């Protein structure tokens, strides 16, 4: 290509004429300071090392404390490190259990176990499950009632003149306090006004019929006089529930 007559340097036809030729040299300083990214092992920044180090440390401490020792048969995450199995509460974490009165224990147990059949309002289900509200079995003597709770009842049963035919299971697995609570609750709820029952009385009733393994039948329970109460607990009912209910007063009244 011949030289331009006006003295311009030779130019290639497809180049952007505004760009100087020595662009690489112009940017050399920048490229030296900030290199192109490339493969290779680079040192990690300090903040990254310390951040992930802290994450691993905290995670490791947490795992060590709450993994149950990585055992498949640990009952609680707190096993092996903080508390024996079956203990429940974590170390340093005192579970505050509010003391419930007998009636409150009974109400809670009733709602989660009895209300399915006898209904929350104690009215039972027509043609299937007898009512407790106003029932002669509930509001008269408590000896029969305690035995129904302890051993269940099966077969036809007349309640307030209506015959029901079903099975009530035994609640023998419950402790005395709970059974006493339920009996006290159903004898005082829904307008029932019968007296409370103490856990000690249930313990005595349980001992009396300890050998029994089958449900009661109506005829067997009818042999217990309708108005018969269990003998009062020794020590004049030390755990009389503080219900404030006037019917709670004659708790230790002698058996009729």
């Amino acid at each position: 290509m011949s030289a331009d007559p006006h003295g311009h340097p030779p130019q290639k036809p497809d180049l952007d004429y505004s760009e100087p030729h020595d662009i690489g040299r112009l940017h050399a300083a920048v490229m030296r300071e900030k290199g192109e990214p490339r493969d290779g092992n680079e040192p990690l920044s300090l903040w990254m090392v310390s951040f992930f180090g802290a994450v691993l440390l905290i995670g490791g401490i947490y795992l060590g404390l709450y993994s149950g020792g990585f055992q498949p048969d640990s009952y609680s995450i707190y096993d092996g490190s903080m508390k024996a199995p079956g203990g429940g509460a974590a170390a340093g974490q005192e579970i505050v259990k509010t003391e419930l009165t007998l009636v409150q224990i009974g109400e809670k147990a009733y709602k989660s176990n009895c209300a399915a059949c006898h209904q929350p309002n104690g009215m039972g289900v027509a043609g299937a499950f007898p009512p407790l509200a106003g029932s002669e079995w509930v509001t008269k003597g408590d000896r029969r009632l305690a035995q129904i709770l302890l051993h269940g009842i099966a077969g036809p049963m007349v309640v307030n003149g209506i015959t029901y035919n079903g099975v009530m299971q035994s609640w023998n697995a419950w402790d005395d306090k709970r059974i006493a609570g339920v009996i006290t609750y159903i004898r005082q709820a829904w307008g029932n006004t019968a007296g409370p029952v103490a856990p000690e009385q249930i313990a005595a009733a349980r001992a009396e019929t300890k050998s029994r393994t089958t449900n009661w039948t109506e005829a067997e329970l009818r042999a217990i006089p309708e108005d018969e109460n269990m003998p009062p607990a020794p020590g004049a009912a030390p755990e009389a529930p503080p219900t404030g209910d006037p019917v709670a007063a004659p708790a230790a009244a002698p058996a009729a």
Partner: protein
Amino acid sequence: MNSLPRLFIGIFVVFLFAWGGLVAMPYLQLGGLQPQADEEGNQFPPARDPLAEEGAQVYAANGCMYCHSQQIRPEYAGSDLGREWGVRRTVPRDYVNDRPVFLGTMRTGPDLTNVGLRLQDPLWHHRHLYNPQSMVNWSIMPAFRFLYKVQRVKGKPHPDGFAMVGDPTVPEGHEVVPTKEAKALVAYLISLKRDYALKEAPVTPTEP
């Protein structure tokens, strides 16, 4: 770009680690889990009788699991024990007899781990399956009437039949008779009792 294999190996190792922790380790630790026997040779959890085993299939077929779980969470992870849904948490050994295991993820309805302890009366279950609102008036459970036959009482009532007083779908003089599926399902529900103690899950006496 010779680091591509390294990248893939890194990804593979990350997944392998997770697989090891979530699949392999539990399998090694629990894969051979057996029922536990006591001194008298009783097995815990006890084997189900054939009718209840059939009921488990009815339970599966009707999707009970979509609304009902079968797992009691430990005390630190929920209030299941406080609600009296169980006497102890459930542990893997509780499910060794179950195929499939109905752990469930939803609690639209109550947990059924111990429904056989709470409700032992078949009549309750039959009435409840036929018309849930007849037993629990605020229940949102659908009725499973197709598991039952409503028939006129001819002479002696059917031995398994029951009356539904006041139910509009059961006319006067009719009774509700459970089908085989209904009886199997109720047998299964009543068999759901996880109150036995295992060596890794002791039952402590409940304090109300």
